[in-house]
């Protein structure tokens, strides 16, 4: 079975859980659609995390699990601002899961 989102009159392929199959399909408007599917209205704080997660993936070819995400973001924004609680508040169903989905990245490995 094929799964997809419709965006700009085009079909964008996803997996069954709604993660994009091709990171290159992503753009800012698609992020809004993906976010609304998660019941999240993207604030500036959300965008900061989503952009960070996407940049991390592009730089390291791997999605950051929650601890790695906190550690990497703290290095950039400082420990006062970033904590796992802060990320959890922005992405209640799990920052690693939801932020990667909205950032157009593949579903994180089940290994964790």
């Amino acid at each position: 079975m094929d799964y997809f989102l419709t965006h700009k009159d085009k079909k964008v392929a996803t997996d069954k859980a709604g993660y994009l199959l091709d990171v290159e399909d992503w753009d800012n408007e698609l992020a809004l659609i993906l976010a609304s599917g998660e019941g999240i209205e993207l604030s500036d704080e959300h965008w900061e995390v989503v952009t960070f997660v996407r940049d991390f993936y592009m730089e390291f070819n791997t999605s950051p699990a929650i601890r790695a995400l906190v550690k990497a973001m703290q290095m950039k924004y400082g420990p006062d601002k970033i904590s796992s609680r802060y990320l959890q508040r922005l992405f209640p169903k799990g920052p690693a899961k939801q932020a990667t989905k909205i950032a157009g990245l593949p579903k994180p490995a089940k290994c964790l």
Partner: protein
Amino acid sequence: MSNSIAIINRSAPYGSSHATESLDLAMIAGTFGQDISVYFFGDAVFQLIEQQKPQTKGVKNLSKVIKSLIFFDVENIYVCQKSMQERSIQLSELCVDATLLSNDDLKASINKHSRIMVF
């Protein structure tokens, strides 16, 4: 010492799945707060070459993945000096700031661990 983990990599990247699944394991060990050391030995030193450029979509650039280890709390990265020399690789060609170990240091370092895995 009691529960420290050593992962000895000795396989070249891309030709087999050893490198990929070994790195997955290292990341999870780090994430679980284990005391972990990762060794690059024999052909595995090729995993550390900075200038890797996979040409196939869906094949991850392992040098990039190795660079991310630090965020997964994998901080002890060691590379065998002899293996580098044998393959005429310079330290400047590596993608991370790995600790270069002489043969004696390599032995001593590995011997500190009680859980040793080879990939």
